[in-house]
């Protein structure tokens, strides 16, 4: 088992009133209106905060609503989506902002996206350099040579080799595409980075390389919301870990306590860790519920060994870092 990542610089003090967190999400819910009037609750009541120089990993099984949450923060949800709750960064309310505000002040400037399949998020018929320069012109208002220099700076900060700037997206290897995506996210010097499944489909050593690179951006003072189902990548990068199940955040804990001892307090989070081949490699019985018809009470009750009548009927409140009627151990 890879030893827990080196001791990190001490995380900044508890978010006090005078110094508001970089990103504060309260009661964020997203649901989709399906044909025939049915509603699918993709995200319910998500709440967390994120500080500069800190990385929060949002982990969970594929299909639990992680990527929907990322799209909600950037205002890129499809037309049939409805949102509720608040998500505030640098004084701007993300969920109610209209398209013009999002395009001119938030995207690229306040929140930088490192997308899932990086090569697919670049326009195939234009070179990486051209798209970098275009983004630089749009975000910084620079023109011509100055814009090109700014773009080259962002590429260099993301360790993207300067001589590959005239390459087309389909000519990039997995690792290069990842670094190009990071460079594009850094052009606007956004204080908050949003990495949506950055390591999917990459080989193991490439995953570690990408995780370290993202960690380097956090150590330079940026905040990073890392969305992934790869727990090993989360362990290498995160300061805190939030676990999502069936659209709900069921646990938020410090990375050292989560991956080390005493381990996660929510039974699902514990089951997720035990399923790793590095550990007992035992699967969580049963299947995740349909987001279209979530059971009453705790969504994990049908698969939880410690569930009782209360779990099945009453939905647990998120308190003490977890949303469970029978959490393990005491609150930190």
């Amino acid at each position, binding site marked *: 088992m890879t030893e827990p990542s080196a001791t990190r610089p001490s995380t900044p003090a508890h978010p006090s009133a005078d110094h508001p967190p970089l990103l504060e999400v309260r009661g964020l819910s997203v649901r989709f209106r399906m044909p025939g009037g049915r509603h699918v609750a993709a995200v319910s009541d998500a709440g967390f905060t994120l500080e500069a120089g800190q990385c929060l990993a949002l982990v969970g099984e594929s299909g639990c609503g992680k990527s929907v949450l990322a799209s909600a923060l950037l205002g890129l949800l499809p037309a049939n989506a409805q949102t*509720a709750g608040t998500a505030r960064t640098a004084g701007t309310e993300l969920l109610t902002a209209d398209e013009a505000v999002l395009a001119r002040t938030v995207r690229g400037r306040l929140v930088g996206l490192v997308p899932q399949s990086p090569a697919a998020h670049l326009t195939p018929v234009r070179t990486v350099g051209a798209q970098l320069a275009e983004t630089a012109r749009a975000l910084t208002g620079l023109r011509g040579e100055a814009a090109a220099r700014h773009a080259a700076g962002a590429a260099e900060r993301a360790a993207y080799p300067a001589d590959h700037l005239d390459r087309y997206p389909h000519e990039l290897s997995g690792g290069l595409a990842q670094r190009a995506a990071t460079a594009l996210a850094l052009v606007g010097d956004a204080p908050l980075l949003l990495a949506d499944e950055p390591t999917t489909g990459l080989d193991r050593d490439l995953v570690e390389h990408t995780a370290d690179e993202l960690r380097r951006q956090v150590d330079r003072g940026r905040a990073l919301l890392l969305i992934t189902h790869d727990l090993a990548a989360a362990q290498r990068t995160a300061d805190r870990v939030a676990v999502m199940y069936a659209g709900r955040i069921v646990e938020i804990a410090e990375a050292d306590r989560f991956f080390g001892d005493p381990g996660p307090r929510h039974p699902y989070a514990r089951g997720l860790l035990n399923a790793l081949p590095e550990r007992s490699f035992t699967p969580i019985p049963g299947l995740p519920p349909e987001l279209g018809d979530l059971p009453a009470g705790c969504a994990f009750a049908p698969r939880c060994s410690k569930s009782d009548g209360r779990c099945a009927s009453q939905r647990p409140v998120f308190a003490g870092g977890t949303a469970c009627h029978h959490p393990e151990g005491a609150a930190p």
Partner: protein
Amino acid sequence: MADRRPVPFAAPAVWRSRGGTRRSTRTLRIAASAAVLVCVALAVLVVPPAVDLDQQAVDLPSKLLPPSAAHPFGTDDVGRDLLLRCVYGLRVSLVVGLVAALAATVIGTAVGAAAAALGGWTDRLLMRLVDTFSSVPHLLLGIFVVAMFRPGLWPVVVSVAVTHWLSTARIVRAEVLSLRSRPYIDAAVSGGAGRLRVAVRHLLPGVLPQAGLAAVLMVPHTMWHESALSFLGLGLPTHQASLGNLVQTARGSLLAGHWWPTLFPGLFLIVPTLAVAGLAGAWRERLNPRRRAELTL
């Protein structure tokens, strides 16, 4: 430190949606198209036997009457009622279109499936043939065949069919090739399925929708071509008046300012074509795996 403050249970959520919701006119389009096609079928099947119209009956006094109650579409330059002639014309055009489209689809599917299934040099040979045929403009090839074999019903049907199997062949071949490379064909082979079972159980259901769609869309296209041939005087003989013939004979009276003998035969060709396009479009939307409403988590 994790958050100490218990999060208050969210008040009843205030839902806000960003994109405007547009009423889909899909069901409206399908209903309208279906209604038109039913009318076309009724008109073509019921009217001829019911109203025994003698095509050659000439009624000179009521020559070139504008549309009126008696003659909804007015009369042509020899006094015949245009509405009835349009229905007859539509029937002829439809017959030619259906037969030619059917022939084109059968030839195209056979060539396309054979090219994809056999592969190797047969595939290259057949595709070279298709490329050659398709590099001659359809109407020009049609004109050439009809010119050589003297205008008549069968030369027109043959010339339109011979020039239209190319697109079907390409569609079927592309579809079979893309399906054959899918892992689920490998899984069927590994599961003991024989060649025939793979073809009938897995490949055919995959190809039929696309080939069927191509066939349906072919009918208006072949009708279009038949009308072009007839207009150029190389289509059906005048006593078998198709819509193209009607427009050609109407050309004289048009220059004298009478617009209705030209307008209505054209509309009789356009409206059924739009109906077929409407239904085919809805069908293609259902076939398209990436439906808009599908949720992407």
